[in-house]
Every structure is written in structure tokens, then in C-alpha cells.
């Protein structure tokens, strides 16, 4: 398989995204509410963890920035700095910067030092240069990467007679044992440095009755022959330095024979000592230590005493057995059923999540889609051969259908993600774009845990960015203007997401001035987008913003005016099977509503027939269906009809005509009408020949294989294997001619040449 380190690194970047998210969250909470201790800790920990991981992979730039950020946050933690105003703003910027650095590191991109520098300078202003230089060494130490505070020397060739001899005297305090240290392991570390000989002295040893096993009573003298420096020897005692009396001194040569003591006058200590022989009374059998620490022996000699002390001897690893029955008593399993406890080790692994390649999920989604189609085909053939409805075959098939649906739903769930990450990106957009034009803007989000298909989220980023920029740039008034108007100086942009009848609705709202309709109208006329004498309703004027080529040039700032208009926003949302509508109140603000399908893979639809063609209409677009009686139909204009539905006149649209399948029939009595509604309240009565079925269909995009077709959202495969097109009702209605009366002159039949020929935008 692949390199485990590379995998961990990839997983680190995923974790970074999560940490960045909680960092953002935390800062937002501080901004919105308060800087309570725990929130600051969360923010601190996020930066801290990123730094830690980055250090492990030698990502120096990231480490050093995270360190400065962390240090500043620590100032807040310790109460020396308050996270408010400009400091908090700086933290947000740092969070963004940290995110950039993480992504740059992930994508192996070089980062822009010039962009980082001012932020670093601001941080340094807060923490003072002293702090920075003080910590500098620390950083450098860390970024040298993969070094250990404790440096255990590599074992040298032991037993070389020429190596200098050292005399180490070591008297542990009782705390040494309390902290889980074990002298024999220290000796082993020394053994790795060279040839050693250990002797134990027990001048302080109390009478056996008074012996406290928790208390250390012994001292050791180790003679060591090594060519390592004194520091290397000292490092072996790194963990215990402050828990013992330690003396390391160079002794005069003479290779000590077994049992021979180095002369006391060379020892550098005045303490008397005695060689320890094997003494059964003593808690620590020193012969074992000596043998164990014998440089020539790698064998471990288990202590029979401790071995029998442990009830779960079999399950216990060797080192436990090795432990002398001395000061620290062998650990007692907390549970008498300890051997069984091992079964629980899987439970101990934190939160069971699996990272899966998206391609694999997509493959699964596709396969499940195929099953759905297959199942539909099967049902159809079973029905066709005339098997009665309550027969076991039909019942079994129905259960199969239910299961298929359940599987499909579960598979779709895998792809669903909360919109939170998207919203956090937007909050950055707001911060940056408002700072650029010196407006105080606050983004308020709602429903960020609403889940949507991952692809939808990804492809929503661009249009949403544009809309947010628009709101900040054009929607909101300047600070001064707002104050004159008696509004809060700080403008508000609201971003919300919620599930509504099988779709997700995302709203971008500002509390700005609302659309300047006079200006928009004038601009549209000036650009020749509409005839000069046009009489448009407020709603129609607002919708002019979505016209291709509508760009209010004098409003273009460096923010939103990037050559992308709202028409692009609308078409990218339409490409996702979504719709966008606009609503504006003068003086109160503008709202853009985006309605999107939860998933791009399936759709509940109504299967209809018109002029020998089968089409699918998304169920959620249909308000109601009704049969047309002649009483309801009214001639409206020379070419059009309206239909009276409970005293509301709704334009009649012939689907067959609009799609170019037939010329208008003129008389629609007896036809079936589907009442189609839209977000902005516009609706139409779409007439079809018949309704065939209501079912879930698997969406097959047309975009990739063919291109966009006006009025058509996608395609699907029906039970008979035929392809049926899925209607995009909003697009159909928006572009419909509404002609329902036959052409008076030459009938151009399959060609609606009344000026409504819809162009194919893409091949």
C-alpha cells in the first residue's frame, strides 16, 4: 500500500481543516458573544495542534506563523490581552492566513511572504519583540524537526578497554518511583552507552517491618566505560534529574572487575557503599539487576516473585514480569476480568470514521442508480406479463423496491455535508471585502449544519461568493450613509440555509438600501436590454439583474466587478438544478434566495407524455394537477390563453409547443394541466397530454455529454430503457413564448419561429 507517513500527512491536512473550522467557530463566538475561557482554549488548541502537526512534517513557515499566533492567543488566555476590536480582527485575519498556509503546504505551493509580513508584524506588536526573541530559539528547535528533548546516545561499541571510565552515583528519591520511573531501565540506558557495572548500597535501609515499598531506600553506584561525553550520561537521567541525587564523575581508568568497587576517593562522593550480593530479604534482587545490565547479556531474566504476583501472567507482556518486586508494586489490573478486557481494545480507538476516496462513493452512487433503474425495469416487465398484484413475486418486488430506496438514501447520506465550511469561507469574504472598501459589515449565519450534497456545496462556492460580495459592495450603504439614515453603522449580511420540502434553500440577505430600480431600469434601457418604453413591475425590474450583459459599470468596484454578472450566478445555480430569485424592499435591503436539490443524483418526478415524447417534471415544482374544462380557458391575446384557477388567471403554456414537438393546438379542452410554482411566486399552467406515473428517477447529466438544453435540467433512464428528459420548469417558464394558438399564416410546424427560438448556449 501507500506510504503510511504520506497517509498521515494527508490526514493531517484533513484534520487541519477541522481545526481551522473550530478556530473560526471559536473566533465567531468570541465576536458574537463573549471571550469565555473555554472558547479561547478551543481557539488556542486549534492553532496549537496545527503547529504540532506541522512541526512533525517540517512545515517551517506554518510552524513559525502558528507559533506567533499561538503566543498571542496565550496572552489572551492569561488575561494580559483582550480579544476584542482590532485584536479580534487580527485574529480573524491570522485564522485566514493560517488556513492559506495550511493549504499552501498541502498543495506544495509557495506562499506570498509579502502578504504574511504585515500580519506577522501586527502579531509581534501585540506580543512584543522580547517575547518573540525569547521564543525564537524554541521555534528553531522545533522546526529542526524530529528531535527529542531527551537525547539518548546511540549505543557505542561496548567493552573497549580504552574508553574512559565514569562513576555515577545515584540515589533516587521516593518521588522517582511515584512518577513511574524504574532504576533498572535507567541502568539499561546507561548500558547502551558502554560497559557498566552496577552496585547497590543500602545504608538507609530500614528494618523489614518498617519497609515502605513506596519509598526508595537504596543508592546505586554505576561504573561506566564509555567514550560518550558526560552530557550523554546525564541525558539518561533526563527524566529523573530532579528526583534523585545524581553525581557523575570521571573515574581513574582501571577496568573494574566483577564485584570490584571503584575506589571511594575517586568517586567524588563521600558516601560509603557496599556491594550488594543476592539477598532475598531485599525488595529488589540486585543480582537480577546486575545480570540484566550486563552488557554481554540481552536476555531478560524474569523475576519469579513478581511473575506470580500478577494474576494475569499470560496476558501480561514480558516487561511486567521483569519488574522487580521492589518499591513500585506491580500494577494490579483494575478489573478481575482483565484478560477479557483486551477484547475491548477496538472500542478504545477514537471515533470510528473512515476516509474514503470520493470516486469510490460516486461509483457506489452510480451503481445504486443502476439498481434503481433495473428494479424499475423489472417491475415493469413483471407487470407486463400479467402477474397479479398480490402474488409473492409482486410483493417481493415491492419489498425490493423499498430496500433499494433505503440503500439509495443511505448512499446519498455519505455525500451529504453541512454547509458550515461554505459559510465559513463566506465569512472570510465578508471580512476581506468589507475591509477593502472600509465598510463595517457583520455576517450573521444561520442553519450552518444543514446538510447538502458535497458537490452542490463545492459548486455553490463561486456563485455565493459573488452574491456575498455584491451584498457588501452594492447592497449595503456606506457607514456614514447608514448613520444618516438612522441605521446601525455596521451593515448586516445574513446567510442562512434550511431544508424545505426536499430542497435546500439558501438565502443571502442584506439590510442595505434595496435595489435602486430607477437606476437599474435606466441601465437596462441604455444597454438595449429592454425597449425604452418598457413598463415593468418591481419584480421584473429586480430580475433584470439576472440578464446577461447587465453590468452596472459605474458601480463596478474592485470587488464584485470581476467580469462576472448575476447572469453567471444564475446559470451556475441552474446547472445545479437550482433556482435563484430576488426580492428587494427599498431602504430595507435585498434578499437572494437559492433553492437547490439536496442531491444531484435522484429526483422525485412526475412522468408525463406530450406528443409521443415522455418527460419527467420535478415533483416539487408542481403545485397541483387538473383536467382542463373549456369553462376555465380564456383567450388572452391573439396567440395566448390564460386559465382560471379559483379566480386567478394563470398563463397557459403548451409543453409540446415550447419544446418544439408540435405547433399550438388552439383547443386544449380535455388536456391535463400542471400548475407550476416558483420561488418568486410566478407560476404557469403547463399543459401535457397525459400523466403516466410518479416516481423517483436517477438523474443523468446532459451537460457533459451534450451541453445545456433550454428548459431541460437533465435526463433519466426509464423502466423501458428509454431516455426521458427532465424538465427545468423555472427555465422553461422563464423562456416560454406562451403561444397556445395556431400560427395564422404558414404553419412552420416543428419550428416555433415566433421569435422565441431558444438558442442552444452550449453544444
Amino acid at each position, binding site marked *: 500500500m501507500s506510504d503510511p507517513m504520506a497517509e498521515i500527512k494527508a490526514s493531517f491536512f484533513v484534520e487541519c481543516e477541522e481545526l481551522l473550522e473550530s478556530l473560526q467557530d471559536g473566533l465567531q463566538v468570541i465576536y458574537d458573544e463573549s471571550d469565555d475561557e473555554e472558547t479561547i482554549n478551543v481557539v488556542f488548541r486549534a492553532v496549537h495542534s496545527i503547529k504540532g502537526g506541522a512541526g512533525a512534517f517540517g512545515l517551517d513557515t506554518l510552524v513559525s506563523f502558528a507559533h506567533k499566533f499561538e503566543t498571542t492567543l496565550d496572552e489572551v488566555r492569561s488575561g494580559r490581552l483582550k480579544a476584542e476590536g482590532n485584536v479580534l480582527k487580527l485574529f480573524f485575519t491570522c485564522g485566514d492566513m493560517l488556513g492559506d498556509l495550511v493549504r499552501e503546504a498541502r498543495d506544495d505551493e509557495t506562499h506570498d511572504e509579502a502578504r504574511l509580513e504585515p500580519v506577522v508584524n501586527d502579531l509581534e506588536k501585540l506580543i512584543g519583540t522580547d517575547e518573540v526573541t525569547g521564543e525564537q530559539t524554541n521555534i528553531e528547535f522545533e522546526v529542526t524537526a524530529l528531535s527529542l528533548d531527551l537525547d539518548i546516545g546511540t549505543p557505542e561499541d561496548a567493552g573497549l578497554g580504552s574508553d574512559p571510565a565514569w562513576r555515577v552515583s545515584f540515589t533516587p528519591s521516593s518521588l522517582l518511583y511515584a512518577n513511574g520511573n524504574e532504576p533498572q531501565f535507567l541502568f539499561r540506558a546507561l548500558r547502551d552507552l558502554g560497559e557498566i557495572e552496577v552496585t547497590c548500597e543500602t545504608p538507609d535501609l530500614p528494618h523489614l517491618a518498617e519497609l515502605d515499598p513506596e519509598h526508595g531506600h537504596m543508592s546505586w553506584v554505576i561504573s561506566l566505560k564509555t567514550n560518550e561525553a558526560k552530557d550523554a550520561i546525564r541525558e539518561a537521567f533526563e527524566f529523573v534529574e530532579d528526583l534523585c541525587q545524581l553525581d557523575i564523575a570521571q573515574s581513574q581508568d582501571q577496568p573494574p572487575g566483577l564485584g570490584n568497587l571503584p575506589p571511594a576517593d575517586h568517586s567524588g562522593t563521600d558516601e560509603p557503599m557496599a556491594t550488594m550480593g543476592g539477598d532475598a530479604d531485599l525488595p529488589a534482587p540486585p543480582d537480577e539487576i546486575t545480570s540484566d545490565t550486563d552488557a554481554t547479556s540481552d536476555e531478560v531474566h524474569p523475576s519469579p516473585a513478581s511473575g506470580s504476583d500478577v494474576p494475569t501472567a499470560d496476558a501480561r507482556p514480558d516487561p511486567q514480569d521483569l519488574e522487580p518486586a521492589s518499591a513500585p508494586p506491580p500494577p494490579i489490573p483494575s478489573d478481575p476480568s482483565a484478560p477479557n478486557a483486551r477484547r475491548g481494545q477496538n472500542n478504545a480507538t477514537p471515533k470510528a470514521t473512515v476516509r474514503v476516496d470520493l470516486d469510490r462513493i460516486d461509483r457506489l452512487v452510480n451503481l445504486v442508480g443502476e439498481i434503481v433503474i433495473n428494479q424499475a425495469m423489472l417491475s415493469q416487465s413483471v407487470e407486463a406479463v400479467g402477474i397479479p398484484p398480490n402474488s409473492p413475486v409482486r410483493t417481493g418486488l415491492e419489498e425490493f423496491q423499498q430496500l433499494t430506496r433505503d440503500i439509495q438514501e443511505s448512499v446519498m447520506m455519505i455525500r451529504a455535508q453541512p454547509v458550515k465550511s461554505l459559510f465559513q469561507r463566506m465569512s472570510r469574504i465578508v471580512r476581506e471585502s468589507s475591509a477593502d472598501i472600509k465598510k463595517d459589515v457583520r455576517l450573521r449565519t444561520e442553519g450552518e449544519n444543514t446538510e447538502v450534497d458535497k458537490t452542490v456545496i463545492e459548486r455553490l462556492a463561486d456563485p455565493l461568493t459573488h452574491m456575498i460580495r455584491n451584498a457588501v459592495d452594492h447592497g449595503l450603504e456606506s457607514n456614514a450613509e447608514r448613520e444618516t439614515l438612522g441605521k446601525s453603522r455596521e451593515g448586516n449580511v445574513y446567510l442562512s440555509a434550511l431544508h424545505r420540502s426536499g430542497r435546500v434553500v439558501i438565502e443571502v440577505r442584506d439590510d442595505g438600501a434595496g435595489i435602486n430600480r430607477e437606476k437599474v431600469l435606466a441601465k437596462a434601457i441604455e444597454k438595449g436590454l429592454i425597449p425604452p418604453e418598457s413598463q415593468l413591475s418591481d419584480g421584473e425590474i429586480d430580475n433584470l439583474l439576472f440578464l446577461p450583459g447587465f453590468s452596472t459599470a459605474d458601480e463596478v468596484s474592485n470587488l464584485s466587478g470581476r467580469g462576472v454578472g448575476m447572469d453567471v450566478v444564475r446559470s451556475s445555480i441552474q446547472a445545479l438544478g437550482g433556482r435563484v430569485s430576488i426580492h428587494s424592499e427599498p431602504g430595507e435591503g435585498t434578499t437572494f434566495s437559492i433553492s437547490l436539490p439536496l442531491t444531484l443524483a435522484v429526483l422525485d418526478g412526475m412522468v408525463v407524455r406530450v406528443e409521443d415524447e415522455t418527460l419527467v417534471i420535478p415533483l416539487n415544482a408542481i403545485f397541483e394537477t387538473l383536467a382542463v374544462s373549456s369553462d376555465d380557458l380564456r383567450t388572452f391575446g391573439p396567440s395566448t390563453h390564460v386559465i382560471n384557477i379559483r379566480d386567478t388567471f394563470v398563463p397557459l403554456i403548451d409543453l409540446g409547443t415550447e419544446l418544439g414537438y408540435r405547433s399550438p393546438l388552439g383547443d386544449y379542452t380535455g388536456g391535463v394541466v400542471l400548475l407550476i410554482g416558483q420561488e418568486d411566486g410566478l407560476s404557469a399552467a403547463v399543459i401535457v397530454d397525459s400523466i403516466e406515473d410518479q416516481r423517483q428517477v436517477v438523474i443523468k447529466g446532459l451537460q457533459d455529454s451534450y*451541453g445545456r438544453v433550454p428548459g431541460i435540467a437533465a435526463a433519466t433512464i426509464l423502466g423501458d430503457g428509454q*431516455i426521458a428528459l427532465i424538465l427545468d420548469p423555472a427555465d422553461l417558464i422563464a423562456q416560454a413564448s406562451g403561444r397556445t394558438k395556431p400560427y395564422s399564416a404558414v404553419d412552420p410546424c416543428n419550428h416555433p419561429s415566433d421569435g422565441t427560438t431558444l438558442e442552444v448556449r452550449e453544444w
Partner: protein
Amino acid sequence: MVTAHTSNDKTRDSNVHEYLSFLVGGQDYCVDIMQVREIRGGAKATTLPHSPDYMRGVINLRGTVLPIMDLASRLALDTETDGDRNVIIVVAISDRIVGLMVDAVSDILAIAEDDLQPPPDLPADQQRNFVSALTIMENRMIRVLDLTAVLPSQDEEAA
């Protein structure tokens, strides 16, 4: 039904490429065999609204939506033999897969590069754009179809 016409020594020559030749509007055309995915019989296509005349619609090719192009119509050739054109050559051009509706598939030809000649530059013929080379085989002129040109670019508007 399709017989290989090639002599072995020719195929070994690196300058020789294999082409699938077919009949459309009574004329001989061929495409590089490397671009052909499969050949299948015609199926009822679902009409695409507002599409150019030469787009027959889409069919279900084992779960994918396959656009079908009426090649005779695209090449502005005689389309009287409508009923006979029921063979679909599925071709891949870059990352797109399209079905070409033709009269009949004829042969697999091995053509050496040296035997290909550039098409004459005749501005009156729109189809000049769709032919990348010509060759003579058994006294018949065979056009090498320029698939990239035949497939309108994604943003080309309706004819």
C-alpha cells in the same frame, strides 16, 4: 460483416493507420479506428428540444446518455435514404462520446500516410471543414472525417 483488408506487412509499418470506413449519404468516409468505441444498431432516440437538425437526440448506452448525430444531415449530404441509416458508430473525441448515425459500416482499411492527400480547398463547400484528408481505394474516393470539426464545440450555437 467487416473484413480486414490489410496485408500484414503493411500494418507493421508505423506510417500505416487503420480506419473504419462507412457509407453516409451514398458517400465513402472513414475515421481513425482508435477513435471508434463500438458499432451498434439504431435505437429510438429521445428528441432534444431546440437542438440543431443534425442532432437526432439521445439514447441509452448502458446507462449513459449518448447523443446521436445524423451524420448525413451534419455533412449536408443526401438524406433520402433515411430508412437505411440505422447503424451507429460510437466515437470518442477527447473526453466526449458521441454516436454517429450512418448508412452502413463498410470495412477496415489500412492506409499509409503517404497515400493520404490533403483535401482541395473549395470554399463553396462547407463540408471542406469536416474532411482532413482523401485517399483512393479500389477506385473509390474515401474521405477521412475530421471528428473534432464534426462535433461542434461546446459553445457553438445552433446552426
